[in-house]
């Protein structure tokens, strides 16, 4: 089977097109620009729509319009762009429109710089924009998963009528790896609720305004029930040597790649390390973490932020097991050796 060496940022577009994407709207931003470059090249060649919007406020509004019209629509950006999209993301949730948004996280706050961080976690996972809302958040840690997650994102978005985020980072966007492409193109199904500009869809209304308190309350309860359902239906994670693990790393994205190597090195040194890697950050694998909390001696959350995912881990384990935070900010990336040495030092210190 053919393997293609490609960047994560390119793979996400291959996955999207094979997943039946019909439209790409976006505004360039480093380190996500290759997504727009690949889309600008491949969408028109495949007979699909590509448009560079004037800003992220417009590109997310274009997602809103195209999704309402039944399209399979995707955009890619990074932190500063996502901040601008907050308005549209809230409207997409309010009107329950399916779309796919890729965030290749860079270092913040403000302009920060183009180096990798994982500091958009709180913003993306806990509801980007005003109101009580969220979306599915997928966390790829390889070019292959950038492709695979984009491939399945549209089906998920339509099943739950929500935004599906692909929460990546500068390294997973820039890395080149062999990617095996899905061999079938998904079809974009007809949606009963969408606007097609025809008689059959004429009575459809897409809106997030509810004038009666009871209706808006009901709408909110409906959204929350939907998010709750995701927890039992689509939570996904990878486990590395958890069977007998005493020290469990919890990491996603590029951090999980480094922790994976660290687990290997620690095992060579006789330390029973393991890892749980959430592939879905929303819904979060809380149930499995709670189980593991009864087994391991310690959990170590490794992330490139001030400690954002660690709060979800703490909430999941409810004090049953100590949770340490290994974190880096400003674009600093730990080496495998640094993590190994730190854990060894912590263990020696008791």
């Amino acid at each position, binding site marked *: 089977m053919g393997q293609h060496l490609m960047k994560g940022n390119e793979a996400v577009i291959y996955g999207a097109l094979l997943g039946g994407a019909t439209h790409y709207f976006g505004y360039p931003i480093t380190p996500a620009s290759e997504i727009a470059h690949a889309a600008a090249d491949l969408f028109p060649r495949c007979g699909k729509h590509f448009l560079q919007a004037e800003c992220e406020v417009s590109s997310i509004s274009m997602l809103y319009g195209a999704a309402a019209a039944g399209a399979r629509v995707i955009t890619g950006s990074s932190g500063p762009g996502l901040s601008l999209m907050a308005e549209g993301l809230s409207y997409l949730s309010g*009107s329950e429109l399916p779309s796919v948004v890729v965030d290749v996280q860079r270092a913040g706050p403000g302009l920060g710089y183009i180096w990798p961080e994982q500091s958009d976690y709180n913003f993306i996972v806990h509801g980007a924009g005003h109101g009580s809302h969220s979306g599915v958040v997928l966390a790829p840690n390889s070019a292959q998963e950038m492709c695979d997650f984009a491939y399945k994102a549209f089906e998920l978005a339509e099943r739950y009528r929500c935004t599906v985020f692909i929460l990546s980072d500068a390294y997973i966007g820039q890395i080149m790896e062999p990617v095996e492409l899905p061999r079938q193109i998904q079809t974009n199904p007809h949606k009963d609720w969408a606007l097609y500009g025809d*008689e059959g869809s004429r009575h459809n209304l897409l809106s997030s305004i509810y004038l009666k308190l009871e209706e808006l309350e009901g709408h909110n309860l409906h959204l929350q029930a939907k998010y709750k359902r995701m927890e039992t239906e689509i939570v996904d994670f990878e486990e590395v040597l958890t069977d007998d693990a005493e020290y469990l790393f919890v990491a996603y994205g590029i951090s999980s790649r480094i922790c994976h190597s660290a687990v290997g090195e620690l095992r060579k040194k006789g330390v029973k390390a393991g890892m749980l890697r959430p592939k879905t950050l929303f819904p979060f694998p809380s149930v499995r973490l709670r189980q593991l909390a009864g087994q391991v001696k310690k959990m170590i959350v490794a992330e490139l932020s001030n400690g954002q995912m660690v709060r979800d881990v703490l909430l999941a384990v409810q004090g049953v097991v100590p949770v340490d935070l290994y974190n880096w900010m400003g674009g600093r990336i730990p080496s495998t050796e640094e993590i190994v040495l730190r854990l060894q030092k912590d263990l020696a210190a008791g």
Partner: protein
Amino acid sequence: MHTIKHQKARSLYPTFDRKAPGADVSHYCPGCGHGTVHNLIAEAIDDLGIQDRTIFCSPVGCSVFAYYYFDVGNIQCAHGRAPAVASAIRRTHEEAIVISYQGDGDLAGIGMSQIVHAANRGENITVFFINNAIYGMTGGQMAPTTILGQNTVTTPAGRLAANEGFPVGVAEIINSLQAPVFVERVSLAGPVKVMKARMAIRKALRNQVEKKGFSLVEILSPCPVNWKMTAVESRRWLENNLEPVFPVGNLRDLPKGPFDQVDKKKARISDRKILEILGVGEEEVHTGTVRLKEEQNFKIAGFGGQGVLSTGILLANCAIAEGLKTTWLPSYGAEMRGGTANASINISHETIGSPIVSFPNALMVMNLPSLDAFEDTVRPGGAIYVNSSLAPRKVRREDVTAYHIPASDIANDLGGIQCASVILLTVYALVSGAITIETLQKVIPLAIKRKNLVDLNMRAIEVGIAWHRENCPKEEKTTEV
């Protein structure tokens, strides 16, 4: 003479439930212009026979509830964003009739960017812009179109140019762009003017049906409640105060747009063709089943332009061809040292964890700064491949194997300095055994598009082999050279 129909347009709902269940009057205030414009648009939709095809994008403001009136496809948009939403719908359904209906705060304030760019792209949509010089729904605040001296709740002493600037002429701004086909400003100040508005609205919609392009009608409209006047007074005030600032009339009416709207159509491409374009199922170059002596943590570094990143990609492609797992990561963030470009390549039989090579067991340096920056990071027992043409000093470490190859000089003699890195890569291949020469020769023509460069690099491989033969006697390979 125009005939005025008194029955309700078919594309309006029979009752106006926003007001009250079964109501036959709208929720708009007495004397408000929205109702008049709604009627004119609905009548035009009826007459053009486009009710089923119409998708109406309603704004934020009093007309947020347009969907209570128009029996067409409806979508409610975020404040100011309707033209972006409409642009995307336009690009999804070629035959839909897309209307963006906006007020002055929505269009000329918060949404100025969206309207200007949608107009500039010449989207085949119709925009109805209700300019009543004030914010209605939020309670009478200043609008971008509020005239100088006009009292509002946020300009209680009257709008002052020195503080709030001048009223914005939207029709003039849109008319400054190349793409729109139709721009007209009309007024609802009296029956004759309303008839002119009716004509403009119909024209703007007909243009879209005929796929001519972007049309905008700015409608000067009364807001008696927030102007604090009676309905009759408000029409007089509109005529005497707004019209002098915003002159009514047609600003543009082109027979056709500056480009063919067909450009935005997409050809239907079959799934089979898409799979072909994306390279799905392409045959793989599979040559070897190399057994690695050890996992390769390879770093290549040099000046930009020395082919550092592309040589790394070449190596990764060769590794794939050998049936191995590989990662390639460009220099990035804290990894970027000494002002040099570098790339990390891992090659392994096993799933690769960290793609970052902090401590390589194989380092290839194309220049002196790279040697200085990375020599100390090489793991004991590792190898350093030095382009000695540009890094004229010897490797100082004694616990690594060093290969000093005048690659740039040799490449120059071959007729192209850009193949220096391939000479080094050839020596690396022979020393490490991580990839075979056969694979390198197969992958280069696939990786390099220009024929003359392929030939150059093929000769570079030969020269690399010769250098290795002459400088790396078998027994010396494990000791220092």
